[in-house]
C-alpha cells in the first residue's frame, strides 16, 4: 500500500463540486422559506431621526419589518460593553452599510423591494475617516461610553533610547498596510429553521461549534437544541469567524414567523457588512550599524478598526502583528506598541494572515531600508541578520513568543538559486540604464509567521472553549472508516488531508475512508478552521485516533489468530503474526468483530474500534519562506507587471504537495492583489467607493502572473506528531513585501524609498514624475 502522506492525492471533495452537486447555504431550499432584506445606512455618521417602514410593510408579500426596538428582548452582538454593537443601528449609525431595519418577505425579490421603501431620516454628524482625524483634538467621538476614539492604547514597554542614541545609524519608515476585503466568492449566508423542538441553523461559517455557543447564549436556547450545520462554504479567508448580526437575527425571525428564514448577502452588501482586513499604519524606527546589522527596532502600530471593534478577533490583530515584529531576524532589542482607533468605516477583522502580513510587510520593508542606507545587497543584509539555524527554539526579545524551528538562510539560498539572483541583478542594472526598456526591480521577502493556533490558552481568549482540534475514527462493520472532525474546512482540502493521514496510520485504502465535519449534532466538539491550524492539529488528532483504533484492532486480530497481540503486524490492511504474513485477518473481519460481542476477546466491548482524540499542540509553529519577485514597470504609464515569482516555503511536513501548492498559489495571488490592485477606499464623507466588484479590483486570471518556480525546504516542528507547521496563510503573508520591494527597487533611480500598497499605475507614475504618490 503506497504511503499517502506526502503524495499528490487528488481530492475527495471534488466530484460533487465539479458536477454542480455541492451544497452551499443558498442551495438548501426548505419548503415555506422566507427571505430577508436589509435597509442599510447611507450615512457614515449620523443620528437617526426617524424610520418610516409603513410603505415597505404594506407591500404584498412582506410579512414583517423590524427595527432595533423590536429586538429589545435580545442583547447586543457579544462584545465589550460600551463599544459593543446593536444588531440593528440604535439611535446612531457609525458606518455606511450598517443595517438599520430588516424585512421578512415571501421572496428575496420582494424583500429587496421592501428594503428600498424604508425611509430613514438622518441628522448627519461629522465623520472621521482616518485615525489621524479620529485622534485629533475635538474629533467627534464614536463611542461616548469610551470617551475617545482610541479604544485601546498599548505604549512601548521601554523606549530603547540607549540603543537608538548609541547606534551608528538609524532610519525611519512610515507605512500604511491598506484596507482590503476577503471577497469570498460566497458571501455571508444563513438559513434558520426554528421548529417546535429545535433550532437548526445552516451558516456559511468557519467555526460551527463556536457559532453554536454564541447562538445558544444569545438566543437562550440549550446547545442540545441548537444545531449549527456548516454545509459547503464558498471561501472564508478569516472573514467568516465573526458574529455578524444576520447570524443572530435570522433565527429570531424564524421563531417569530414559525417558518424557515434565509438571508444571502449581495456582493455590494458583503463589501460593507462583512469585515475588511489589514488597515494598519506603522511608524517603524530601526537602529543598525555600518555592516547592516540591526541593533534595535521600534514599531508603533495604529489599527483602524472602523465603526465598531470586532470582538475579540479584530481587536487582537495588532497583538499578533507585534508578536511577529522581529520577522526572521535576531534583533536584540524591540519595542512594539499599538493603538486601536475607531473611524466611520465598516468593521475590521481577520483576513488571511490576520496580523502577520502586517508585521511581515513592516519588517521586510525595514530590511530593504537598512540595505539601501548601508549600501549592502538586500539578500546579504538578510543573511547577516537571520536567526541562526542553531538558535531554535528562539525567544523574541519583546514578547513571550518562541519560534519552534527553521533554517532561514537555507530557505533564502534556495530562492536565490531558483531565480539566479546574480544574473537578475545584472539584467536589472542594464535595463534600468536603457530608457527604451521597461524598468526592472527585484524584491525579496524572507518571512516567517506564526501558525497552528494553537497551544493551550491560544484561542480561549478569543471565546473558544479550547485550542484543540478533534478527530473521531470509527471503524464500520465492513472495515471501512468514518472520521468525524471539529475542523471546518471551506476549500482547504481537509477531507483529503485527514484521509491521507488516517490511511497511513490505519493501513487502509483511502477510498474506504470518509471524513465528516460541519454539523454540531454529529461531529465532536471542535474549534474550526482558521489560523493555519488544521493540518497540524486536526491532523495530529486524526493520526492519534487512528493509532488508538489500531491498538484495539490488533487485540481483536490477536484473538482471531490465537496469537499474542505484541506479535501482530498491520500491513496493507491485513493483520498477521510477524513473520507469517500468509495467515492474516482483514480490516473487514476485524471491523465486523469489533461490533459483534460473540467475536470479541473478553477484555473488549462492542464499539471498541472507535476513538476520539482532542489534540493539543504543544506550541505555536513558525512556517517560513523566501519569495523573490521581479517586476517590470512601464516608464510611460507606471503600470507594474510581475515578470517572475519564485516561491520557497518551509511548512514542515507536507501531507499533500498538490494541496500545499494550491494554498501557496492562492495566498500569493491575494498578496499580489493587495500589493498592486485592491483597496477599500472611502470618500472624505465616508462613502465607500469600492463596494462592488466593478470598483474593487479582485484580480482575474489575466491579472495574476504565472508562478515561475516553487521550491521547498523542510524543518519539522516538534509541536505536533506530524511535524507539520501549516501553510494556509503563508502566501498572503509573504508575497506583498516581495512585490513592493521589487517596485521600490525598480524606482530607486527616482529616489523612491517607499511605495504604499496598492502600487497603482497612478501612484507609480506620480512617484516617477512628481516624486510623490498623490
Amino acid at each position, binding site marked *: 500500500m503506497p504511503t499517502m502522506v506526502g503524495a499528490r492525492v487528488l481530492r475527495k471533495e471534488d466530484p460533487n463540486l465539479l*458536477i454542480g452537486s455541492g451544497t452551499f447555504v443558498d442551495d438548501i*431550499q426548505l419548503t415555506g422559506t422566507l427571505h430577508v432584506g436589509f435597509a442599510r445606512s447611507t450615512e457614515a455618521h449620523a443620528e437617526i431621526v426617524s424610520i418610516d417602514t409603513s410603505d415597505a410593510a404594506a407591500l404584498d408579500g412582506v410579512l414583517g419589518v423590524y427595527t432595533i426596538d423590536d429586538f429589545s428582548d435580545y442583547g447586543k452582538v457579544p462584545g465589550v460593553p460600551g463599544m459593543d454593537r446593536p444588531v440593528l443601528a440604535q439611535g446612531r449609525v457609525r458606518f455606511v452599510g450598517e443595517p438599520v431595519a430588516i424585512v421578512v418577505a415571501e421572496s428575496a425579490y420582494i424583500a429587496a423591494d421592501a428594503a428600498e421603501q424604508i425611509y430613514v431620516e438622518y441628522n448627519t454628524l461629522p465623520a472621521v475617516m482616518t485615525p489621524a482625524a479620529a485622534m485629533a483634538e475635538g474629533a467627534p467621538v464614536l463611542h461616548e461610553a469610551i470617551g475617545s476614539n482610541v479604544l485601546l492604547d498599548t505604549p512601548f514597554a521601554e523606549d530603547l533610547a540607549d540603543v537608538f542614541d548609541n547606534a551608528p545609524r538609524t532610519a525611519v519608515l512610515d507605512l500604511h498596510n491598506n484596507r482590503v476585503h476577503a471577497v469570498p*466568492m460566497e458571501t455571508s449566508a444563513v438559513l434558520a429553521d426554528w421548529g417546535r423542538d429545535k433550532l437548526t441553523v445552516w451558516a456559511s461559517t468557519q467555526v460551527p461549534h463556536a457559532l453554536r455557543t454564541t447562538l445558544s447564549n444569545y438566543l437562550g436556547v440549550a446547545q442540545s437544541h441548537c444545531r449549527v450545520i456548516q454545509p459547503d462554504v464558498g471561501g472564508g479567508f478569516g472573514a467568516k469567524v465573526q458574529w455578524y448580526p444576520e447570524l443572530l437575527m435570522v433565527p429570531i425571525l424564524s421563531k417569530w414567523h414559525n417558518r424557515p428564514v434565509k438571508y444571502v448577502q449581495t456582493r455590494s452588501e458583503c463589501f460593507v457588512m462583512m469585515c475588511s482586513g489589514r488597515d494598519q499604519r506603522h511608524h517603524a524606527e530601526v537602529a543598525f550599524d555600518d555592516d547592516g546589522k540591526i541593533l534595535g527596532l521600534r514599531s508603533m502600530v495604529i489599527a483602524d478598526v472602523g465603526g465598531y471593534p470586532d470582538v475579540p478577533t479584530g481587536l487582537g490583530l495588532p497583538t499578533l502583528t507585534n508578536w511577529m515584529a522581529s520577522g526572521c531576524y535576531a534583533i536584540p532589542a524591540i519595542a512594539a506598541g499599538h493603538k486601536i482607533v475607531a473611524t466611520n468605516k465598516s468593521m475590521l477583522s481577520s483576513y488571511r494572515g490576520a496580523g502577520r502580513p502586517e508585521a511581515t510587510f513592516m519588517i521586510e520593508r525595514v530590511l530593504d531600508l537598512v540595505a539601501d542606507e548601508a549600501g549592502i545587497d538586500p539578500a546579504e543584509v538578510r543573511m547577516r541578520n537571520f536567526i541562526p539555524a542553531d538558535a531554535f527554539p528562539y525567544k523574541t526579545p519583546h514578547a513571550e513568543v518562541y519560534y519552534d524551528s527553521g533554517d532561514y538562510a537555507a530557505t533564502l539560498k534556495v530562492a536565490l538559486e531558483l531565480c539566479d539572483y546574480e544574473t537578475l541583478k545584472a539584467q536589472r542594472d542594464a535595463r534600468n540604464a536603457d530608457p527604451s526598456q521597461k524598468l526592472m526591480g527585484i524584491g525579496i521577502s524572507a518571512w516567517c509567521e506564526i501558525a497552528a493556533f494553537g497551544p493551550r490558552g491560544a484561542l480561549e481568549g478569543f471565546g473558544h472553549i479550547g485550542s484543540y482540534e478533534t478527530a473521531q475514527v470509527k471503524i464500520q462493520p465492513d472495515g471501512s472508516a468514518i472520521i468525524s472532525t471539529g475542523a471546518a474546512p471551506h*476549500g482547504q482540502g481537509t477531507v483529503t488531508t485527514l484521509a491521507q493521514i488516517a490511511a497511513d496510520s490505519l493501513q487502509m485504502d483511502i477510498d474506504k475512508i470518509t471524513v465528516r465535519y460541519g454539523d454540531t449534532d454529529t461531529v465532536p466538539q471542535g474549534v474550526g478552521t482558521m489560523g493555519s491550524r488544521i493540518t497540524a492539529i486536526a491532523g495530529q488528532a486524526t493520526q492519534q485516533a487512528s493509532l488508538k483504533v489500531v491498538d484495539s484492532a490488533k487485540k481483536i486480530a490477536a484473538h482471531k489468530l490465537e496469537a499474542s497481540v505484541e506479535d501482530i503486524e498491520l500491513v496493507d490492511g491485513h493483520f498477521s503474526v510477524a513473520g507469517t504474513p500468509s495467515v492474516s485477518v482483514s480490516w473487514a473481519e476485524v471491523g465486523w468483530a469489533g461490533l459483534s460481542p460473540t467475536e470479541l476477546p473478553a477484555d473488549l466491548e462492542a464499539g471498541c474500534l472507535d476513538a476520539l482524540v482532542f489534540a493539543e499542540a504543544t506550541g505555536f509553529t513558525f512556517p517560513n519562506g523566501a519569495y523573490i519577485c521581479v517586476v517590470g514597470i512601464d516608464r510611460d504609464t507606471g503600470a507594474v507587471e510581475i515578470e517572475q515569482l519564485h516561491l520557497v516555503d518551509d511548512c514542515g511536513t507536507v501531507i499533500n504537495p498538490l494541496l500545499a501548492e494550491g494554498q501557496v498559489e492562492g495566498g500569493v495571488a491575494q498578496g499580489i492583489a493587495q500589493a498592486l490592485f485592491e483597496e477599500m477606499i472611502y470618500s472624505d464623507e465616508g462613502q465607500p467607493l469600492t463596494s462592488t466588484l466593478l470598483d474593487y479590483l479582485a484580480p482575474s486570471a489575466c491579472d495574476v502572473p504565472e508562478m515561475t518556480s516553487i521550491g521547498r525546504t523542510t524543518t519539522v516542528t516538534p509541536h505536533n506528531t506530524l511535524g507539520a507547521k501549516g501553510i494556509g496563510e503563508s502566501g498572503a503573508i509573504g508575497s506583498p513585501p516581495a512585490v513592493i520591494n521589487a517596485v521600490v527597487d525598480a524606482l530607486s533611480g527616482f529616489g523612491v524609498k517607499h511605495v504604499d500598497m496598492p502600487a497603482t499605475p497612478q501612484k507609480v507614475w506620480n512617484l516617477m514624475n512628481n516624486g510623490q504618490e498623490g
Partner: protein
Amino acid sequence: MNEEITVTVNGVRSTDQVEPRLLLVHYLREQRALTGTHVGCDTSNCGACTVHLDGQAVKSCTVLAVQAHDHEVTTIEGMADGDKLHPMQEGFRQCHGLQCGYCTPGMIMAASSLLDENPNPTEQEVRLGLEGNICRCTGYQKIVESVMWAAANG
C-alpha cells in the same frame, strides 16, 4: 403579471410562469432546482453564474428568464455524460483547479466555451479568455493548468 416561458435546460423542456424581471440564474436555481449555478456578485463581474445559452457562454445574472424563452440552456449539471465527467470537469479534478468550489461551475462553463472557440489556446489566451470569472482560492495557476489539460485530453 407573470409571463409564460418554455426553456430547454440540459435537454429537458419545461413551461413555467415567471415574473418578467426574474433573472435566468434565479429561474434555473429556484424553478428548475439546478443549484449548481451560483451567484457571486451583483454587477456581472464574477462569472460564477456562467451557463451556456444556445451553446454560448453567458452570465445568467445578466439574462432575464424571459429572454431564454424558446432557447436551450446548458448548466454545470448537464456537462457530464452519466458518470463520465466532461473533459473540462476532469481537467479541474486532475489539476486541482478548485478549492472551495463556488466559482467552479461558472469557471468550467466559461472554460469549455473558450475551448469551443479556440481548441488549442496558449496559457495566456486561457488567462485572457477567463477574464470574466473570478476565483478567490486558487490564484488561477491550477485553473489554467486544468484548461490546458482539457485542451490536450478533450
